[in-house]
């Protein structure tokens, strides 16, 4: 489980997070919503110690993140907003293997994880394809596979639908649904709630670096529009 307590994060003068308390349980599916600049990305980067809080603290599975970086990054995997920046290798298979290799696993285990992760995102058999030949939706799915291969307790996706066309969007959504059913806990960051609301156990909205809403989708849907979030015409 991820536990953030009183996190304050500043960029120079800008206060990006202004005292955020949030706990995410194992197995939970949380949608983190909020307008551009509300602090969503900054918050999730705290979940695995990519940045340090100026005030407050974050723990993962009960251990302080900054003191156990490897543990935190094994437990929480993030797929960032710009998936094309995350691909580190020239081919699909090599890219997915990158994380497991860093964990020092043996080759068989690495191969097992690579096939499993590629299967989960429906890219099986594409191991030797070059990454630049993939479409936008495939790149996004590959980035998800790279994170899945870490076999994290929590998978965080920062704006996974940006720039995807409808089929790509649907295919990513279908993968997320399947993962959810399989028991992975998901945190989906988005400012566009169409479809993902049906995925969520819980919706948390940020505004100006604070948590302003936190509840089940049906409870909070009507209030979300106040915070510049795009809400589906017929929610749930």
């Amino acid at each position, binding site marked *: 489980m991820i536990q953030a307590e009183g996190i304050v994060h500043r960029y120079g003068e800008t206060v990006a997070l202004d005292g955020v308390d949030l706990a995410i349980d194992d197995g939970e599916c949380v949608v983190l919503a909020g307008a551009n600049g509300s602090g969503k990305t900054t918050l999730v980067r705290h979940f695995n110690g990519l940045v340090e809080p100026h005030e407050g603290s974050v723990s993962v599975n009960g251990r302080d993140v900054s003191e156990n970086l*490897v543990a935190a*990054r094994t437990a929480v*995997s993030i797929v960032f907003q710009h998936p*094309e920046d995350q691909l580190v290798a020239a081919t699909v298979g090599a890219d997915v293997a990158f994380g497991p290799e860093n964990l020092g696993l043996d080759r068989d285990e690495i191969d097992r994880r690579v096939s499993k992760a590629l299967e989960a995102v429906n890219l099986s058999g594409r191991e030797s394809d070059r990454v630049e030949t993939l479409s936008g939706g495939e790149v996004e799915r590959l980035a998800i596979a790279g994170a899945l291969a*870490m076999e994290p307790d929590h998978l965080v996706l920062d704006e996974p639908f940006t720039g995807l066309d409808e089929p790509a969007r649907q295919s990513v959504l279908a993968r997320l649904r399947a993962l959810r059913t399989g028991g992975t806990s998901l945190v989906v960051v988005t400012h566009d709630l169409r479809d993902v609301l049906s995925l969520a156990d819980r919706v948390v909205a940020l505004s100006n670096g604070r948590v302003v809403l936190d509840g089940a989708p049906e409870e909070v849907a009507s209030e979300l529009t106040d915070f510049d979030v795009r809400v589906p015409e017929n929610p749930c």
Partner: protein
Amino acid sequence: MLTYEPGDSFAHRLDPRAKLGVQVAFAAAAFAYTTPAGLVVLGLLALGCLRAANTSVRASLSALKFAVPFLLLAPVVEAFTFGSPWVVPSDAVGPALASVRVVLVFFVAAAYVRTTPIRESRAAVQRLVPGRIGTLLGVGVSLVFRFLPLVRRDLLRVREAQAARLGTERRLDERLSLVAAGGLRRSFARADALSLALRARCFAWNPTLPELRFGRRDVPALVLAAGLWIAAILPLLGFG
């Protein structure tokens, strides 16, 4: 960080070519007169330039941070000799004066950076370097200013994405190659998009340049530049 800041100081209103002239001439004079007396005069002049640019000594020192260890180490190492007497303090004098000279040159350069917008720098380049080379250099310079923040952000993202998957556990050369390859890929993609955009906007050899005109206020700067040049050249001609 030392960068351009809008303002209306005396230096802000000077023609960029005049400021470039002063900078280069000042450096030449500083190399010609690296003596205590010379550096006192030049030091006053450098402070005058900062004053005219409404720039603090502190702000300009920030551009020097990286060089400080070098400036301190050079005199120390030069004073050291293998074998007795091990340290010859008088040997440190020359290098120490040289370090002071470097600081002064940085001050004058800082005054330029603080007071000259990119547009004016570009226009100056395009007028000082004739022909097609000047056009390419001018546009190229403005593109570097434009893309630097983007590429910096790209590199940060790449490093972050790798850290998230524990790339930090790898050997230094592998880490370097991953960061550089990521930066390279993004930069090539940006260059492709950019070149299309440049063509769509009719990137031409003969554009209208931003206006630059020497005015009366540039006279003191031009006189100063000329004076410094003459002073720098005199010793070479056997005077002074």
